[in-house]
């Protein structure tokens, strides 16, 4: 029966250890960062409160990933959302954070309701809440209920992970929280949902029908594309990073979905390989997204605004933050020597190996998914060129940017740790893959002895595919060597003199920061290319002094949030309309109330036989 005092309340298998590692890798730098970040912002009491909440938040996440009983998992899961709600609403002064907190807590709670329903159905069939007991009992579960439970888990964890139709809360909640908190939320909290999916769907429920993997991959591709397109259109740094988290969650889910797909086609080694790709991108994303949020936070602290179009030229005023941001941007757009490239390359490679070994039709499907992933990679590169270029390069566009100063030392150390991690995770890819292989093997229950995993000769022995080579250290080495060669060419051949003068302004005399390309301009080609989805709104107005002379010209454009407009708003208005209609039931006249009592009595007597 339900014995809650199960001794093995906690279970530390490789999956949980991996996630614990991810949690602590991101939380420690954020903790270091938070000292500097919070100093000027809030009163001393609030800073203490912030630190306590931060500690409780990290602790609750650690417990979520290491507990082995469904009920306790649920409790810590809700506590995690509760504390993160307090953190999102931490800056109680502006109304936006209250609205963000509301949307966030309501969405996560609805997600948890689905998870509760799934646990209950599981309990119904297995009469126990313990993971291991459920796992054994799940083998004999009828496939119909398995599908329902899978869908419930998908919706429940999908809301927390921010898969597209359910991602509405993410761009509201993450920017409102203090930056070091949103770096943890974006870097790690979303991953606990992925942990939930892997733990409950892959290892406990056991995948037996292939449409699961396909469904997850479709959702993942959609989230990738939608996430990155909205990120491109966004002008607020932290909201842009939140949308790019939606995109990266899509990439991670591609890996996980692929693993499920291969399990159902019982190609174990490919499943392990794609799960490795998914997990590797998970930890990479945790690191570079954490770094990017910290940099965004320090930009916010130094300038006081998060709006890209008001910033510019910060590289001269905040050199170190600029370098860290550059590293983060390079990592997220998957450029070679850094860790983002490795995980993206692994995911693509997983798609290719899959395409080799899978029957006809799904080859095309996998190919198209790979193509969409490549498209997202390209768009991500464009997006982060926009962010870095507009915030840090060229001339400052407003007084905010002019008055910027380099941030406190503790903040810079926090960021430096993450940059070092990025480089390490890039170069030591081969070693890390071996570790991840153990984790993936333990999750899928496949012994991975037979696979040779040195990244240099990635030969998946039992699979019929020639060996593919990738070695990041060699790449980095050759890049440096040729860098030095080209620098030498630059130094020796030409004349040494270089003159500093004004940028080429076609001869006009007036050249100021208004000539620089703005974020809206930069994203204009993308807005037109994807206008079928973004439905851009554009309004130009000529303010005329007289009929002939135009004094000034206003240009206003914004993109409509399609999902919010066509799914969430109608549902909300419907609910509130019915509620208002119900309110008319209590108009205040006592006679009506007595009538209610009398009518219920009559109806009950008349329909007595039905009960």
């Amino acid at each position: 029966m339900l014995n809650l005092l199960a001794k093995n309340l906690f279970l530390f298998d490789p999956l949980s250890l991996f996630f614990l590692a991810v949690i602590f890798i991101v939380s420690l730098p954020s903790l270091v960062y938070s000292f500097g970040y919070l100093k000027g912002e809030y009163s001393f009491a609030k800073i203490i409160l912030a630190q306590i909440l931060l500690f409780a938040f990290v602790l609750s996440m650690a417990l979520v990933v290491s507990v082995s009983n469904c009920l306790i998992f649920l409790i810590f899961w809700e506590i995690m959302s509760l504390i993160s709600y307090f953190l999102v609403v931490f800056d109680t002064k502006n109304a936006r954070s209250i609205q963000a907190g509301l949307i966030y807590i309501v969405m996560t709670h609805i997600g948890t309701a689905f998870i509760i329903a799934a646990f209950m159905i599981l309990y119904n069939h297995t009469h126990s809440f313990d993971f291991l007991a459920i796992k054994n009992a799940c083998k004999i579960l009828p496939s119909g209920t398995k599908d329902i439970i899978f869908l419930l888990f998908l919706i429940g964890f999908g809301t927390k992970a921010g898969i597209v139709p359910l991602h509405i809360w993410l761009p509201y909640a993450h920017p409102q929280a203090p930056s070091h908190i949103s770096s943890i939320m974006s870097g790690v909290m979303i991953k606990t949902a992925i942990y939930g999916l892997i733990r409950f769907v892959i290892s406990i429920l056991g995948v037996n029908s292939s449409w699961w993997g396909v469904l997850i991959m479709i959702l993942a591709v959609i989230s990738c594309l939608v996430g990155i397109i909205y990120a491109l259109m966004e002008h607020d740094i932290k909201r842009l990073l939140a949308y790019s988290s939606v995109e990266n969650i899509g990439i991670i889910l591609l890996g996980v979905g692929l693993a499920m797909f291969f399990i159902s086609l019982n190609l174990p080694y490919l499943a392990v390989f794609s799960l490795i790709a998914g997990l590797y991108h998970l930890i990479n994303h945790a690191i570079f997204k954490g770094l990017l949020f910290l940099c965004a936070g320090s930009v916010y602290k130094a300038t006081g605004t998060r709006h890209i179009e008001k910033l510019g030229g910060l590289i001269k005023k905040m050199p170190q933050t600029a370098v860290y941001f550059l590293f983060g941007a390079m990592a997220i757009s998957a450029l070679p020597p850094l860790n983002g490239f490795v995980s993206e390359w692994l995911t693509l490679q997983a798609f290719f190996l899959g395409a080799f070994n899978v029957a006809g039709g799904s080859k095309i499907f996998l190919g198209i998914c790979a193509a969409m992933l490549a498209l997202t990679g390209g768009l991500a590169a464009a997006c982060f060129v926009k962010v870095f270029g507009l915030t840090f390069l060229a001339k400052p566009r407003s007084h905010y940017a002019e008055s910027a100063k380099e941030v406190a030392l503790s903040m810079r150390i926090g960021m430096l740790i993450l940059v070092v991690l990025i480089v390490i995770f890039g170069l030591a890819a081969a070693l890390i893959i071996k570790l991840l292989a153990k984790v993936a093997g333990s999750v899928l229950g496949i012994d991975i002895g037979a696979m040779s995993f040195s990244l240099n000769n990635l030969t998946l022995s039992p699979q019929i595919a020639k060996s593919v080579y990738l070695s990041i250290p060699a790449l980095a080495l050759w890049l440096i060597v040729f860098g030095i060669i080209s620098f030498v060419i630059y130094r020796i051949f030409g004349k040494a003199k270089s003159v500093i003068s004004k940028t080429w302004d076609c001869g006009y005399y007036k050249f100021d920061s208004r000539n620089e390309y703005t974020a809206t301009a930069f994203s204009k080609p993308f807005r037109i290319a994807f206008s079928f989805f973004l439905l851009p709104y554009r309004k130009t107005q000529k303010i005329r002094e007289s009929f002939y002379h135009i004094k000034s010209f206003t240009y206003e454009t914004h993109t409509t949030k399609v999902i919010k407009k066509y799914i969430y708003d109608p549902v909300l208005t419907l609910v509130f309309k019915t509620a208002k209609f119900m309110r008319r039931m209590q108009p205040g006249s006592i006679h009506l109330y007595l009538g209610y009592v009398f009518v219920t009595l009559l109806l009950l007597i008349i329909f007595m036989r039905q009960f």
Partner: protein
Amino acid sequence: MQGIILFVLLVSTYLMVIAKRTSALIRSFRYQSLCLFVITFSIALTQREPELYIVAGLLFILKVLLIPYLLYRIIRRIKVSEDLGLFINPQLSLLWALAFTYLSWIFASYIVSANNTILTGTLAIAFFVVSAGMFLMVFRMTALSQIIGLLVMENGLFLLASTVSGGMPFFVEIAIFFDVFVSVLIMGFFVYRINKLFTHIDVNKLSRLKG
């Protein structure tokens, strides 16, 4: 003999339903309580239980003398128009009363096994008196009509109790009477407060609390 008294009780209830003015309402309530007293007294005679006598006496003092006197005092004190404020005119309410007599007769026959018709008759009248009380509360505007509606329902219950199971245990009867009396007192007190605050006792206008 009991049939006649029951019939008089039924007529007094009809009178109440069609009453337009408060004093007419109280007068027919007094007749109804009188019939009730006679019925309980006859049952007491047939079953020779001493307690029933006390209960009948109590009923007479309370329902026939004391409460109507209190109600009349209220009307005189608050000097408000005698009109009962009917929602539906007397003809329709009479029609309604007839319909409900038939309905309660069906309901009573459903409950009582078909053989003894007298029991079904009394049960039917009891249910009808209860629904008449309910009618007075729902379809009349003034607060007084609601008090009287409550008392009429309580009368119906008392009729049901005494005829059907020979009355409830003695101590419970006393407690119920005491309760009815206290509730009438409290409602009277509230009627004064309403009158002081709202200068009218038309309960239908009391609708400040909405939603």
